[in-house]
């Protein structure tokens, strides 16, 4: 039987109301709140630049000026500041990622006058050193799954240290002239330790930035002073040896202020639905 057009027109508002309710019902679907937590990185690689400040016997530029006599007598190494770079690899040793095994390769150059020599300074001497260092250590990460990661670490290091120094002989062994002499410090192997305190800040799940402060003493072990006073080229003289020039018990210690980039591998996300 054919339906009347009036009947169809009467049913139309009912259909519209049903569609409208369906739409409202759809738009009222509950939206949940989620807490999103980042998983810890499985592996971290850092590339850094260092600014170095020498301490203990590595420091020897009082009044902004090097003191040749102190280098010559073996009291100090005669440096002040320096710069360098390092690459650090970090591998998790536990499931929570708090303990990490670190491997480091570093180069540091430490000089008497890093930012140039002032014209008014008297001493014409200087001392510059290069240190190529490899280190193995452990790190404790306080916040491994946070975007902001804080850690302390310590490592044992092995270094090849070389350099050169110029001695200004004014006032040394009774001399009053402006004569100078150059000496070469040959590649010397030493072992030491480092302790650091730093933080990493994740920019995203792949890359972050990094700042730290590290104290390094590169010649705690294997100190030695060899050769004669006639040598113009000799190995690092960092142990007491009475009568031998440049020899004296000296720490090759400095602070590094470190900044660089971190590359993260294996970071995921976990969602927790909040009630």
């Amino acid at each position, binding site marked *: 039987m054919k339906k009347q057009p009036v009947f169809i027109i009467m049913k139309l508002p009912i259909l519209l109301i049903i569609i409208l309710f369906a739409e409202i019902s759809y738009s009222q*679907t*509950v*939206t*949940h*709140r*989620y*807490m*999103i*937590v*980042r998983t810890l990185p499985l592996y971290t690689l850092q590339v850094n630049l260092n600014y170095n*400040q020498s*301490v*203990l*016997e590595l*420091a*020897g*530029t*009082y*009044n*902004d000026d090097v*003191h040749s006599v*102190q280098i010559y007598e073996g*009291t*100090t190494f005669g440096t*002040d500041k320096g710069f360098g770079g390092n690459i650090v690899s970090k591998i998790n040793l536990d499931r929570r990622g708090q303990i990490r095994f670190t491997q480091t390769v570093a180069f540091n150059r430490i000089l008497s006058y890093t930012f140039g020599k002032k014209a008014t300074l008297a001493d014409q001497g200087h001392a510059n050193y290069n240190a190529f260092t490899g280190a193995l250590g452990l790190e404790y990460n*306080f*916040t491994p*799954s*946070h*975007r*902001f990661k*804080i850690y302390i670490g310590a490592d044992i290091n092995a270094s090849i240290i070389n350099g050169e120094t110029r001695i200004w002989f004014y006032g040394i062994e009774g001399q009053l002239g402006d004569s100078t002499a150059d000496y070469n410090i040959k590649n010397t192997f030493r072992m030491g330790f480092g302790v650091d*305190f730093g*933080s990493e*800040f*994740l920019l995203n799940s792949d890359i972050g*930035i990094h*700042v730290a*402060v590290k104290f390094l003493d590169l010649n705690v072990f294997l100190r030695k002073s060899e050769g004669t006073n006639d040598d113009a080229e000799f190995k690092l003289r960092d142990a007491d040896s009475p009568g031998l020039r440049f020899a*004296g*018990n000296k720490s090759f210690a400095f*602070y590094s202020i470190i900044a660089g980039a971190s590359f993260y591998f294996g970071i995921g996300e976990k*969602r*927790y*639905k*909040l*009630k």
Partner: protein
Amino acid sequence: MNKKSTALAFLIAVLILLYGCGGSGQYKIEKGNYSDTTYKSTGAVLKGTYKVRTAPDFTLQFSGGLNLGMAELSSNYQNIFDAQQFVNGENFGVKTGFGFMLTGKVPLHAAGNIRLNITTTYNRFQSDMFTKTSPFGRVSYNVFAFGLGIENSFSPSFKLKPFIAVEIQGNFISGKADIIDEAANSTRNVKIKNSFRIGYMVYSGLEYMLSNRFGINFGLKLTNANQVLKQSSIDSDPNEVSIRDKKVDDPLDFAGFKNFTFTSFFIGFNIYFGVKDVLFKF
């Protein structure tokens, strides 16, 4: 320090303070409608809550530690005091010391990241600390300082609160020296009068809350106590002198360009006020 260096130092300080500012980022809250994760039960009982704390309204921090001198505060001569270097004004004649610091921290906004720090410190340096007795004498210094600065607490509502801070300090430096002349068999006793200098302190460390009221802290501090107002004045009594830390052209005992700069490793405790718990339920 010229204007360029000052501007650069200021920029670096601001960047350091802003580094990581705004929270530790362990989690973020997001709205959405994700299907539940399916997993095979291991039988482990999951923790259904996550507790954080509000930032403290006020923190009182007490810490103490060992100091290691740098630049002219790091005297080097066979690990003992060298009177000649000291009299020539090459260095202050000391290398190591100890100190204490009391800091009040007031948050400057509701989240509690940026805090105003008001600090008082005492530091002492001795030429015969951790070293052999020198046949040339000894020297010691006392430094009382009052400082005002800004701190960034990276995670003010968490148990573990890393922080970094910078401060401007007013320092009162005094001391005394006994200079032995072995040849003449005499000792010169010199009093270093209270000298006022302005310096700075940069420090970073961790606070760890043991409860909502009490916590511990440790960190590393760099201080330069005489960045500004260096001078080498001629005193009426040659054995009662000011700190004499500025280069002078005419020979003057103890005078030379010298920075009273050192690093400190500190450890201590914190007392917190106004910390409340906030609980998230899963």
